[in-house]
């Protein structure tokens, strides 16, 4: 199973774009990259997933370079309510996607 490394914490201000990078050096061919958001006393919430290049949805973008050894979650124009922990997960499709390991996550603090 691929392990992930993220910055422990990041600070930002409202209205700024935030980029959180995750390293997953031993990612396998059939592994996909997903990101989750977790607020205190709640379960994690799925944000976005990708395999390579760029994926965009209504809340975020995900950039994955050709070697797939890292990925960057981009949150456009953050607000105070985006203060949360963000987890990068590598999902091994070869095992049905059942076994995945949460990394330590990145605590994002958005200030006014």
């Amino acid at each position: 199973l691929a392990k992930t490394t993220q910055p422990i914490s990041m600070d930002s201000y409202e209205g700024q774009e935030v980029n959180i990078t995750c390293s997953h050096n031993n990612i396998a061919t059939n592994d996909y990259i997903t990101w989750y958001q977790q607020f205190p006393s709640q379960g994690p919430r799925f944000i976005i997933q990708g395999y390579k290049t760029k994926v965009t949805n209504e809340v975020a973008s995900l950039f994955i370079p050709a070697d797939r050894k890292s990925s960057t979650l981009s949150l456009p124009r953050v607000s105070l309510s985006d203060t949360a922990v963000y987890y990068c997960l590598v999902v091994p499709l070869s095992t049905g996607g059942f076994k995945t390991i949460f990394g330590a996550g990145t605590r994002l603090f958005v200030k006014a």
Partner: protein
Amino acid sequence: DAMVIQNPRYQVTQFGKPVTLSCSQTLNHNVMYWYQQKSSQAPKLLFHYYDKDFNNEADTPDNFQSRRPNTSFCFLDIRSPGLGDAAMYLCATSREGQGVLNYGYTFGSGTRLTVV
């Protein structure tokens, strides 16, 4: 709304007294998971069910057991809770394969277990 429901939200149990946490889902997902999350740590997978097939993680203590009587319900049993078992317990569901990628894991709000 289709969702994952965990009861109770808060549970206090005595040291060594068996406790059961419950999870139900209306998503009709065939995979259900239990995670343990201690304060300021990432969720740690304990085990999962793929339909009725139980899959234990290698480092999950024997003190933790699970039951899945039907598609909708899954239970976490802690046979003899110790102080170190105090944590948030998260239930999650998913489809399998490509379904995990398209829709992700859906988590409940968790049960916070206190051991006294």
